């Protein structure tokens, strides 16, 4: 699956403060499609104009799985801003996705 989600202008120079997100999937499965749709929606709601999503299909590029320590798919990796964060699943749980991306403080104190 190759989704041209990268805005044309982002290829040149990313503006300061741009979020770099990488979504690892394995083939065009219901889970991977759901994950991408959920991610796109959340980004538009919370990071409009300052995000970039790269989708890596491990069936096409299996060698990329080792670098980001991918076990489960889909896995969303927040490459920037630091620190690197990982969220596993189809991102259907919006609350946990936002917590994982640190766009919302974790409810109920530290876990």
């Amino acid at each position, binding site marked *: 699956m190759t989704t041209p989600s990268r805005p044309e202008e982002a290829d040149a120079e990313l503006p300061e403060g741009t979020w770099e997100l990488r979504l690892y999937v394995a083939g065009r499965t219901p889970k991977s499609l759901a994950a991408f749709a959920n991610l796109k929606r959340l980004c538009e709601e919370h990071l409009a104009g300052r995000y970039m999503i790269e989708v890596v299909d491990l069936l096409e590029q299996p060698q990329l799985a*080792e670098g980001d*320590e*991918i*076990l489960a798919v889909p896995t969303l990796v927040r490459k920037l801003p630091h620190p690197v964060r990982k969220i596993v*699943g189809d991102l259907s749980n919006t609350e946990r996705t936002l917590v994982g991306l640190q766009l919302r403080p974790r409810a109920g104190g530290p876990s």
Partner: protein
Amino acid sequence: MSEADITARAGLPKAPTGIDGLDDVLGGGLPAGRPTLICGSAGCGKTLFGIEFLVRGATRHGEPGVLFAFEETTRELGENVRSLGFDLDALAAKKLLKVEHVRVERSEIEEAGEYDLEGLFVRLGHAIDTLGAKRVVLDTLETLFSGLSNEGILRAELRRLFRWLKDKGVTAIITAERGAGTLTRHGLEEYVSDCVILLDHRVDEQVSTRRLRVVKYRGSAHGTNEYPFLIDEAGVTVLPITSLALAHDASRERVSTGVPAVDDMLGGGYFRGATVLVTGGAGAGKSSLAAHFARAACGRGERCLYLAFEESPGQILRNMASIGLDLAPWVGRGLLRFRAIRSMHYGLEMHLTSIYKLVREYRPACVVLDPMDSLAQAGSVPDATRTLIRLIDYFKAGGVTALLTNLGSDAGVADSGMNVSSLVDTWLLLRNREHGGGHTRAFRVLKSRGMAHSNRVREFRLTDRGVELGAALTGTEGDDTTTDGGNE
């Protein structure tokens, strides 16, 4: 013939592990193209079994391998096994091995919705395909349970993983931690139905023993005992000792006792491959008889292994030199090897394993075990006796002529309570005699199977030319001239 026997004969394909002794226990190796579960508590040697399986596969069987390490990093693993002579980096450079560390850290992973473990499958598949790997080790897969919280997904995916491994046709080892009352903490044995091996590391009274047991091996005959194993500088050695059958050839060839007069009493010496027991009190001359036996072996150009449990090689050499037995030159020529072992140093199984290994490497024609009683310090008397029986079996199976000494003041049970007299072929007795302020040593052949022998009690003298037998002693204790066990 059982069903298992029939299938084994039909030839269930096996992948030799290359681990010393393990393939004998497994009837040839692990089930080829199938997963095997190795479980045991922390520190029992699971990882090492896995790594040696891969290293031997790569170096001896031309089968490249993949190791997925869930707990240790690639660097840590490499360092841990370097002392065993395994150079993982060199094998990786030759494309015979791929070690991949799989980091599973719950604190770094947020779970938000449905997922599967296809990422793991992709990585594993990529590694296998890149190398053309035939062997896979997953160490320790269960770590996933601490990294991911959705147990339902995990279990479904593990079931799929084992099926996938079979479809890939790789011979796999999956290691797992022993659970409380179960083979593995997370019940992995439910998914691996072909072969399950349990490792155990016990420490009793500060004596450590490692054991292995094949819990199940579908479609194959396998050894069912607990086998001791050893981890040393050459890797893992498993000892299928108890599988020895009573099929020793009874040799008619004689080997000299090293003392001409004793040879005469036995009609020519010990039988080759026989087990000889020398019983006597402290200072009665047991080690001297052993030294004569050893020297005679070396004089024939045979190798002799001297297992010394109480004295150091230096002490023995000095003591024997004092009665005119100069053994040092034979040590120098490699025909005599001493192995000083403190019996307390480790457990009985480990003694057995290390002796077995030494015998296999050095291939002695003759062995001295002096004194056998010391084994009882490494375990209980019944355990020590059982160990000794296995050793005697092993020597006999290998045609090794063995001389054991034990401390005993009388012909009956030894002071230590260990009694293997029924297993020995020739039993010699040395006794100290006090008489009128004087002191003499008496020697007699208590029994010697399969040969005519003298029943006379002779004076046993330690001279500066070694052991000599004097005139027949007339008994003052009445029973000395009875025959015991004569010609069997």
